[in-house]
């Protein structure tokens, strides 16, 4: 015979009440677990997709002389030799401690060149990295793959007379209509496969009329033209990095490096700091807008889940509070007898707490199982990829802890009140 014997026997006596409490706790925990699992999975998915959306870190040379602007980021003028980056710098970025978080490292060299009497800005890029970074690009024609090939921005192509409206659709405006426009938020939720499929299916409102372009006296083949993006790349001409370095007579030099970091589990500031440490001569900037947009989206989901969970757990806590308070009134005489035969106040608290904690633990375990099952069942409706559901032992532990905490806190007051009952009054309680 121990205090736990009394607690267990009393629970068995009040099976329906114990079942009600278990159900209350289980519903609260199940809701919290399901919402937490779903919001976390969706958050991870959004994070991954936003990470794929584009660069969130830009590395440029440190310089007071800023003349060019690329993608909203000021770039040191090509005319100044001071503060340029090198191919070696791009390689060293891959050596930071968080290197495994770097999805894409895309070096670039920018410079103005002559194109048939017009000045255009040419961007030397690694096309493979660029396609990985700019998943929303839609190319009319072919993607350049080899040397001597160009990808021309829509506005630049138009200015250079490389394109004209498609013959079968000449009456339509050059730019795609709004129904064809893919905005950033849509891009953010599209998979790589969807981007590729969209690119293949992109309506060609223009066609390439001239596939040769001479840049600073060197002839290139125009492999493709970018559909309008609304960004700075519309005015650029893209060529292979090595060719542009040669064209601008800056072998091994870079104007900037765009980095896409997978920052789900790490602060982008850490990566920025590590790159800055690695490249002391460079200015490393996080494109906070993308990061903040992602953080906001993730934060709102998490807040929503937390708010709903809190409300449901509060209801469970109120259920425990009222039930325990009722039990104290109902058991006043019993408590008086226990006090009369030598139970200390702490013994009364222990006996009543054991009951609540046993019920809470059972409710927590059942709630976790129900919540995990619900999130597994609901995942396909909330997640495009259906990824993210997995049995998380830490979440199981957290659910159990939360159930015990809710039980203990909500029953603390009535339990303490029970322990303070005057034994002589309690045994005379009717």
């Amino acid at each position: 015979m121990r205090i736990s014997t009394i607690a267990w026997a009393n629970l068995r006596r009040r099976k329906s009440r114990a079942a009600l409490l278990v159900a209350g706790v289980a519903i609260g925990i199940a809701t919290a677990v399901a919402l937490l699992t779903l919001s976390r999975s969706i958050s991870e998915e959004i994070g991954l997709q936003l990470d794929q959306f584009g660069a969130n870190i830009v590395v440029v040379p440190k310089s007071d002389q800023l003349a060019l602007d690329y993608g909203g980021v000021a770039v040191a003028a090509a005319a100044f030799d001071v503060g340029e980056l090198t191919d070696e710098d791009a390689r060293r970025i891959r050596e930071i401690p968080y290197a495994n978080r770097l999805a894409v490292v895309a070096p670039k060299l920018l410079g103005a060149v002559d194109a048939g009497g017009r000045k255009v800005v040419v961007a030397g890029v690694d096309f493979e990295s660029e396609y990985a970074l700019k998943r929303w690009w839609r190319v009319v024609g072919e993607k350049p793959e080899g040397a001597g090939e160009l990808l021309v921005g829509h506005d630049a192509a138009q200015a250079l007379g490389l394109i004209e409206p498609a013959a079968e659709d000449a009456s339509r405006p050059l730019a795609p209509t709004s129904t064809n426009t893919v905005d950033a938020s849509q891009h953010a939720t599209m998979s790589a496969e969807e981007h590729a499929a969209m690119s293949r299916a992109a309506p060609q409102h223009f066609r390439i009329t001239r596939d040769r372009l001479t840049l600073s006296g060197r002839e290139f083949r125009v492999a493709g033209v970018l559909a309008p993006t609304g960004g700075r790349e519309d005015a650029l001409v893209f060529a292979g990095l090595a060719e542009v370095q040669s064209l601008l007579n800056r072998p091994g030099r870079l104007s900037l490096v765009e980095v896409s970091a997978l920052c789900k589990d790490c602060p982008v500031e850490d990566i920025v700091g590590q790159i800055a440490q690695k490249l002391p001569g460079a200015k490393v900037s996080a494109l906070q807008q993308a990061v903040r947009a992602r953080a906001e989206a993730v934060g709102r989901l998490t807040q929503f889940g937390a708010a709903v969970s809190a409300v449901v757990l509060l209801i469970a806590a109120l259920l425990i509070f009222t039930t325990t308070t009722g039990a104290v009134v109902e058991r006043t005489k019993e408590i008086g007898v226990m006090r009369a035969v030598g139970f200390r106040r702490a013994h009364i608290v222990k006996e009543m707490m054991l009951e609540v904690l046993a019920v809470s633990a059972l409710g927590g375990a059942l709630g976790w199982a129900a919540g995990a099952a619900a999130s597994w069942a609901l995942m396909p409706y909330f997640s495009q990829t259906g990824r993210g559901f997995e049995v998380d032992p830490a979440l199981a532990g957290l659910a159990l802890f939360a159930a015990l905490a809710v039980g203990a806190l909500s029953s603390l007051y009535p339990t303490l009140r029970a322990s303070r009952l005057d034994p002589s009054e309690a045994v005379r309680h009717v």
Partner: protein
Amino acid sequence: MSFIVVENVGKIYGASAGGAPARVLAGVSFNIREGEFVALMGPSGSGKTTLLTVVGAMNHPTEGRVAVDGIDVYALSEERRADFRREYLGFVFQQHHLMPYLSAVENVMLPLATVRTPSREKRERAMAALGKVGLGSLAARLPNQLSGGEQGRLAIARAVVNAPPLLLADEPTGALDTRTGEEVMSVLLDLNARGQTVLLVTHNPDNAARAGRVLHMRDGALAGETAGVPRRPAAAGEVLMTTSS
């Protein structure tokens, strides 16, 4: 030397709650020697039960002092007083106040629940107490499966399981018919014959007359004292409980 010393005890209810104070005990003083069987008699509202709870370390007197075995009961802290009740006192209530969801033997073990003793030893002590009151064969039954007299004896077994020096009984036969009331009284008398000090609150003059000494209460004060039946000590090994279950 007196085992229980009650000195000038007074109790006023409502004095600290801001309500109209009600004096239920005033200037009560008496002594009880070890092994005595003392009955406390008086009309309803005379303060008998209040005095019993004051002696039982459950009800702090407004004034006066209570000492049991030399221990000033109300000088102890709240928690130490709980320990004192467990070690020194056994209570038998009028309504028995048995735990309906515990078996007979578990009810008897209740005062031992907070004691650090092996469960087997607790059960042996409980079975021995049940045996003393003739309920050894009914250990597994729930209280509602016992008769009124058996419930009364079960309450006594619970009160004596920790071998308390003092047994306090608050009208234990009050809710019982004559025959079952007699069962309970027999057990109390037999325990006293074994040396158990008993303080019995009763309305019943016949029961009071079987005590060694009767204290009469009226209006919260002792109104007098009469001698009861002299008790003889039990011989060693004598079977005290003769009532069949």
